[in-house]
């Protein structure tokens, strides 16, 4: 037996997307030694897929914008199930986080005055998204990656070793978060390249592993979105909040089959793209919910005028929040008014000249031209909903991103819950990563002022080792690829955009069955870069996530944001006041209700009472928020 590879750091950051890298920068700037774990190569994280932009109320394009307007939009988008404090911190701090990227070398598109340009997006009252064409996520991750390198160069000058304070461990999977005496002590994992095991001793661990899309059949997420952080947190004793809320992005590619689910950025609609059904009808006018009637145009003429004069016209309904648009498309297709391949049409070719489309939406043009043989400057795209983002996630303290219930554990970015309520607005994700990534780094630094090293015990190491060895010791067991495909079929059919009680019950028992069989997964081949082996662990995580989602969805007897129940079609005030908290007892996921923190008076006062009447009971309104 070769000697176990061991590393010791102050802070371990699991995940190298926007949130993880921002957290690492903050912890390093606080003087700590930081290890960054990426499951893939450095700079490939799913953040690169974010296209539209990063929402921050800088007011560069419309100076009526400010944090309060952004806060209101975020709460509205989340149907008032957001943790108010997270939405508040996000709205207040987002502009600073964007400007900071510029100091680190980011090059956003500009306004005529030379400021950072901002574009319109669904649910945002003013043009608010800082962007670089339609590759904003790439700019963000590259800037963060290069910021890490800049800090490493600084350490090289100061300490003679570029990796003395911040080291990136690429292509490494974490399989367990370790605890001693009730507190985090480190993490255990393996190098994907060799299969060799690694122990990280670190008293603070920040989870920034992103989403869970690969639990579903049609998704915009890459293979990495397997809910690793959600599952690691659950297994280490943390809670997940509101896992029933999944965002189905309204516009994924639908044809050819091999690209089904790949994202078509909301910027296509922000730039004037319209949605039509097979009959050529611009159908979104039929789907404006009452709560949004004041803000959205109910006729084509006004919707079209909005592109030229936003102060005197209401917005086109194509720019409703994502949950509304996804449901509308779903309804059109189910009613038989869909396209040949089960989508609807999205057309920007009639609004903008070809050259402008290629300039503002270059990667969309490229993606459709190369993968679908469609020239979007001349013809419409076929689009349909795709699983895109999970609003639910690790229950955290808003100010320091500390995971509730596990000292030393922090979570930021998509893996954390609460910020987006029942539905996330486009553009709020990239700034969420930056705002709460930074806060997680600060939170870890503060925690370490009062908590020193917490050595890992031999027993913990033995247990983690045994878990990794197990699939190789079995012969003729289940194939992880087939089990994954079965799970995706179940979630797609039974826990998808539209849900019912009987289907959810069915899903829960089927997921439990797969979980039983997954205990018998066998792996062929050796440990060296073996995807079948990797998937065996990812599958374990996805099963816990799917169980949590299905169980939370069964309990929530209403439709809100990213959770639609056919048997309970409307919003219900009772449920707006409740979060669903998932925990894991070692055998199964248990879900309980917990009261949602009440909006304090000063934030309550930012809303028009008539708007709140659509969401709240008269008693709540009479109270006017908490003190």
């Amino acid at each position, binding site marked *: 037996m070769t000697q176990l590879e061991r590393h010791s750091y102050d802070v371990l950051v699991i995940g190298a997307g926007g949130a993880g890298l921002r957290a690492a920068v903050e912890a390093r700037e606080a003087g700590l030694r930081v290890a960054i774990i990426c499951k893939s190569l450095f700079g490939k994280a799913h953040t690169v*897929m974010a296209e539209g932009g990063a929402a921050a109320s800088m007011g560069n394009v419309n100076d009526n914008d400010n944090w309060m307007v952004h806060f209101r939009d975020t709460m509205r988008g989340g149907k008032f199930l957001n943790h108010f404090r997270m939405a508040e911190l996000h709205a207040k701090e987002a502009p600073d986080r964007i400007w900071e990227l510029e*100091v680190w070398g980011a090059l956003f598109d500009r306004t005529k005055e030379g400021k950072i340009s901002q574009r319109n997006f669904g649910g945002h009252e003013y043009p608010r998204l800082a962007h670089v064409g339609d590759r904003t996520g790439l700019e963000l991750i590259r800037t963060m990656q290069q910021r890490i390198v800049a800090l490493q160069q600084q350490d090289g000058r100061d300490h003679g070793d570029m990796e003395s304070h911040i080291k990136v461990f690429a292509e490494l999977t974490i399989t367990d978060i370790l605890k001693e005496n009730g507190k985090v002590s480190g993490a255990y994992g393996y190098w994907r390249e060799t299969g060799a095991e690694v122990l990280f001793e670190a008293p603070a661990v920040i989870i920034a592993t992103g989403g869970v899309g690969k639990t579903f059949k049609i998704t915009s997420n890459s293979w990495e979105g397997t809910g690793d952080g959600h599952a690691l947190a659950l297994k280490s004793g943390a809670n997940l909040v509101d896992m029933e809320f999944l965002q189905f992005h309204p516009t994924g590619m639908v044809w050819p089959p091999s690209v089904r689910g790949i994202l078509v950025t909301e910027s296509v609609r922000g730039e004037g793209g319209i949605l039509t059904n097979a009959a050529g009808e611009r159908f979104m006018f039929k789907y404006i919910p009452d709560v949004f009637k004041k803000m959205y145009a109910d006729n084509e003429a006004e919707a079209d005028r909005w592109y030229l004069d936003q102060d005197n016209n209401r917005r086109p309904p194509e720019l409703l929040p994502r949950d509304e648009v996804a449901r509308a498309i779903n309804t059109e297709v189910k009613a038989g008014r869909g396209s040949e391949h089960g989508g609807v049409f999205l057309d920007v070719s009639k609004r903008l000249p070809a050259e402008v489309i290629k300039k503002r939406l270059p990667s969309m043009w490229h993606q459709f031209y190369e993968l679908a043989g469609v020239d979007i400057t001349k013809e419409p795209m076929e689009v349909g909903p795709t699983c895109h983002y999970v609003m639910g996630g690790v229950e955290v303290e808003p100010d320091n991103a500390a995971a509730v219930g596990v000292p030393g554990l922090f979570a930021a970015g998509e893996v954390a819950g609460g910020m987006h309520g029942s539905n996330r607005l486009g553009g709020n994700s990239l700034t969420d990563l930056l705002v709460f990534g930074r806060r997680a780094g600060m939170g870890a630094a503060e925690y370490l002022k009062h908590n020193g090293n917490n050595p890992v015990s031999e027993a913990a190491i033995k247990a983690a080792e045994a878990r990794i060895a197990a699939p190789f010791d079995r012969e003729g067991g289940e194939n992880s690829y087939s089990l994954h495909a079965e799970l995706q079929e179940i979630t797609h059919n039974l826990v998808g955009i539209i849900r019912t009680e009987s289907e959810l019950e069915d899903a829960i028992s089927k997921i439990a069955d797969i979980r039983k069989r997954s205990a018998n997964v066998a792996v062929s081949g050796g440990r060296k870069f073996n995807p079948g082996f990797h998937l065996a662990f990812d599958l374990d995580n996805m099963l816990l996530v799917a169980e949590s989602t299905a169980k939370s969805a069964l309990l929530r007897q209403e439709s809100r944001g990213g959770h639609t129940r056919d048997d309970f079609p409307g919003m219900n005030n009772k449920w707006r006041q409740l979060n669903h908290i998932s925990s894991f007892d070692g055998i199964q996921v248990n879900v309980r209700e917990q009261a949602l923190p009440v909006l304090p008076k000063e934030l309550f006062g930012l809303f028009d009472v008539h708007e709140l009447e659509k969401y709240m009971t008269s008693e709540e309104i009479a109270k006017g928020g908490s003190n």
Partner: protein
Amino acid sequence: MARKLNLRIWRGDSTTGALQDVQVDVNEGEVVLDVIHRVQATQMGDLAVRWNCKAGKCGSCSMEINGKPRLACMTQVASYDEDETITVTPLRAFPVIKDLVTDVSFNYKKAMEIPAYSHPADLAPGDARMEQIDVERSQEFRKCIECFLCQDTCHVIRDHEENKKSFAGPRFFIRIAELDMHPLDTLKNRKRTAQEEHGLGMCNITKCCTEVCPEHIRITDNAIIPMKERVVDIKYDPARWLGSKIRKRDGIV
């Protein structure tokens, strides 16, 4: 609808390996990465391949397809003749780890050698003002998805391991060019260090890198040639040479 495709896959590791023939189903509209995944799920559970986004945005699934450096997720099976065998092999310029996966750490080491962006000390966050036209030059290079196909195809290092030490490669020439053209970057001498420390002079502009770039970045025309020209200008312009001596300027601005 499905038809059979003859796929030839290189399998092995750093010590040994060989091409293996397989037959696999292929459906309309599929890309090479789709059929590799199908082989993985049905015939070779431990076949190693890197991939992430499957949409041409992350640059992970770089490999050589019929000898050409390409992204497997952006290569349509239909772009080859139906009876043609498609051969997939790992990137040749980098050491093989296993099957289609190579050790690309060379690139991350080079990235650490390029001095970072340097923001003007007196320019507070939020105060930067830049014209769109001025940021566009650098933005072209920031489209780079780091697939390293340009590095793989570059003949300076493709079959010349010995050159790797002194040659950063096209990906990092556009990184230097991007910083050099950044309207606010304060670090001087970027072109000169490109020439003296990162091997710009070893490039003889055959444009192979530009040809394989999936982002269509004009690496040679817009980054390498302008930097080479300026380096030459300054080095051989007697007036500037004299000026640099008299005013003791620290090289090229």
